[in-house]
């Protein structure tokens, strides 16, 4: 198996951290994973990008040319990266984002940012909500491992809230699946 995930949004939304936690979760689940991200001034104010490749065999080339899964938390980042996703890909976006795309079948819209506000009182945990959603899209990763990594990586004192946000993401996904099926 090999999954290529691109997490995108604006600088400060914590997508790099989310990518790292995802990759670490994969590794703890005895998979291989590599994570890369965008750097430089554009990574601050503007569009930010974190990429994770997860596989059960050796991963050599570490860049993603055609993501299997694209997460976008801002309209701008979706607009920039949508073209890279091929038809069989999956798109996960916040409900506030408009997706004008007919070719891609799997488009998931969730109130990611609002859910964060619900759990945390602000949008800072949107990354963890998103991670919850993503965790349901990638087989073979034990969500417990993601949580362990999360506890290690988030600022002290915020562990519980982040876990709650993560679980909220899982819930969002599962509810929608139930609704659809």
């Amino acid at each position, binding site marked *: 198996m090999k999954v290529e995930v691109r997490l995108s949004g604006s600088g400060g939304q914590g997508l790099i951290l989310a990518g*790292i936690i995802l*990759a*670490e979760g994969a*590794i*703890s689940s*005895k998979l*291989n*994973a*590599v*994570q*890369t*991200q*965008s*750097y*430089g001034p554009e990574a601050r104010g503007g569009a930010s990008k974190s990429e994770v490749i997860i596989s059960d065999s*050796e*991963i*050599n*080339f*570490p*860049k993603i*040319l055609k993501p299997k899964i694209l997460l976008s938390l801002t309209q701008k980042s979706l607009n920039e990266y949508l073209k890279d996703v091929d038809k069989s890909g999956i798109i996960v976006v916040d409900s506030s984002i408009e997706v004008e795309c007919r070719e891609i079948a799997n488009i998931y819209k969730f109130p990611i940012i609002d859910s964060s506000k619900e759990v945390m009182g602000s949008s800072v945990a949107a990354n963890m909500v998103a991670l919850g959603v993503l965790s349901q899209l990638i087989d073979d990763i034990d969500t417990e*491992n993601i949580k362990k*990594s999360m506890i290690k990586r988030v600022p002290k004192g915020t562990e519980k809230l982040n876990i709650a946000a993560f679980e909220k993401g899982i819930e969002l996904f599962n509810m929608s699946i139930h609704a659809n099926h």
Partner: protein
Amino acid sequence: MTERTKLLQGNEACVQGAIYAGMRFFAGYPITPSTEIAELSSLLLPKIKGKFIQMEDEIASIAATIGASLAGYKSMTATSGPGFSLKQECIGYASLIESPCVIVNVQRCGPSTGLPTSPSQADLMQAKWGTHGDHPIIALSPSTVEETFELTVKAFNFAEKYRTPVILLLDEVVGHLREKIEIPKAGELEIVNRKKPTCNKDEYKAYEYCEDFVPPMASIGEGYRYNVTGLMHDETGFPTNSTSETGKLMNRLFEKIEANLDDILIYDEYKTHDANILLVSFGGMCRSCKDAIKKLRKENVKVGLFSIKTVWPFPEEKLKEVAKNIDKIVVVEMNKGQMIQEVQRTLGKDKDIIGINKINGEVITPIEIIDTIKEEYLRCLVK
């Protein structure tokens, strides 16, 4: 996942490897994409009684690094292109005074400020020729995070064993990549410490023409009050204008590397046993090569990879051996064609040597390698 399985960035693995090897001093000046090395050092060193200092610039950083080395510390500095250019004068000094130390250059796209966050491997030649005057140099270039750890340990070992600066030539691809690494247990990897003098304090010659070419090294403060100078010097370390002393010194500097190539040269072969096309690459680009080979092999194209980890001195003899029965050589590097010059020089004109190069800040993808190979060679190779 064991305790020692970690997700680490290449730059982080470099710091972890350095500390494993015994690094207890780091001096640096921030520059993308090497900054994480300074940052992690600043966090970890104080916890183990190590010393971290951010200096006013890159020249001061390498100077402080050499100073700490003379005081007995395993020391390191890290930078990227522009900073590496600035450090060149002092790299030559470290080489001539035989001060062990590790200089990391996380290569980025140049020249000048270039594209600071984009990858490149265009400082390969600079690592050998960047400073004025002839001098020997060891440079290592890892292609994975795990290898970064290992080669950083090796870099310190070589520095200490041969009393010489060692350059760790990372590239942005590896430096900024996070992947799985199994941190070796204490004692698992060999750690070398510098040879210390055992003679009487007044008989000590810091630059003795000894049998293994590497004189023992006393630290400042241990009672061996010797002299260090970047002028040509005699065995005692004092300046000399004598051409014969100068000749002896220079020869010893080269000898200590040349006599130990077996120890110093590190490389890997990947599916070369039956290959009729040989990729030659180093650092992050080995990764693209491997993916390309996997795919080409599926199409029955017999491609192998000679991945060079000790880039300087260049492993000429080994390359000759690997390439003995292969006529088509493809050198894959993110530059305008630097390692290919060494390959050409080593293998001569009988071989069909081409380069796959890119200098626009993008990595070379497996597809590009596959396409080039198909275009250039496939007509004749695949039945």
